[in-house]
């Protein structure tokens, strides 16, 4: 096929696609025009039924708690997949020896301060996930990110426990399994899977939302540890020397 024919084909294809896009966009509801009904229903029922002021979390961990469990296990399965693909014991020691440390004290100082700030923000997002915006997933990623900063700005000895799978695996099991156990406990006590089991408490307080609070913590632990395991595998597999390491560091 000559260049001209190909360009003609591309042009007509783009024109067709553009026309379809324009047609689709013209048919969209107006900006901000929400017809419902689920959002309206959820806004009305979640707070009185579950005492969860963050309706998004009430939806994630209660109304569609089973889907969230599936999502948690998608993350779990991908971490297992990455680990199996990248596992190579000999690289671990190499990576540690070959990684350069930052020499600039200012960068390291700011970085260390950000480790503390990141941990606090992560824990806050987790703890108040069902009261204000946030939750186990966001808090877990932020917490794991703060810990990875340790690797970048601190020394590798401080970071070592956070990439030790023998230490991390039990926490991952508690996080991922805890979710299922809360669900099964509801089943065992004669109600539906993942039905609320615990006292609902006062809306807006840390002790509220019943099962949602516990599911939130379970997924927070699962996500944090999953991220740490993922980062550990990536760092050990991919990190290569930026410049020859100085002796004794």
């Amino acid at each position, binding site marked *: 096929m000559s260049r001209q024919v190909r360009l003609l084909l591309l042009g007509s294809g783009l024109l067709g696609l553009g026309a379809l896009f324009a047609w689709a966009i013209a048919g969209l509801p*107006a900006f901000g025009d929400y017809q419902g009904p689920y959002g309206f229903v959820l806004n009305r029922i979640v707070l009185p039924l579950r005492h969860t002021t963050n309706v998004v*979390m009430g939806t994630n961990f209660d109304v569609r708690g089973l889907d969230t469990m599936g999502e948690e296990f998608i993350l779990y399965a991908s971490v297992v997949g990455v680990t199996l693909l990248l596992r190579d014991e000999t690289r671990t020691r190499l990576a540690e020896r070959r990684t350069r440390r930052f020499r600039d004290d200012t960068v390291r100082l700011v970085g260390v301060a950000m480790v503390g700030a990141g941990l606090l923000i992560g824990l806050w*997002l987790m703890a108040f996930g069902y009261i204000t915006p946030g939750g186990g*997933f*966001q808090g877990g*990623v*932020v917490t794991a*990110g703060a810990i*990875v900063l340790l690797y970048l700005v601190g020394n590798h000895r401080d970071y070592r426990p956070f990439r030790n799978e023998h230490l991390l695996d039990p926490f991952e099991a508690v996080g991922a399994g805890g979710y299922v156990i809360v669900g099964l406990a509801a089943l065992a006590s004669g109600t539906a899977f993942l039905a609320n089991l615990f006292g609902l408490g006062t809306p807006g307080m840390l002790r509220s939302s019943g099962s949602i609070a516990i599911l939130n913590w379970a997924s927070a632990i699962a996500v944090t540890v999953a991220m740490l395991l993922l*980062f550990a595998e990536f760092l050990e597999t991919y990190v290569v020397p930026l410049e020859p390491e100085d002796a004794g560091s």
Partner: protein
Amino acid sequence: MVLATLVPLQAVAFGLVALGAPLVVLTRDPLRQALVNGIYGVSLVCLFVVLEAPDPALSMLAVSGIGYPLVILAAVARVRGHERTEEDEEQ
């Protein structure tokens, strides 16, 4: 009709996102692209906040600020490492 319901702040946030997306695509160097993508992520976070969707904003912040750059940087490090070993072999 659509634009009439947009508050100016929303229009600015949408504009920043529309500006940022092609910038990410047009950045050829993967390392720079990871940085530009992080900034683009922040503009999306602003858009979500302006549209009163704080939960997606936080998810976006976590993914675009922490998760995605680390994966990209790891891949860049690996590619550069390969290039370096190939250079070493040539020398």
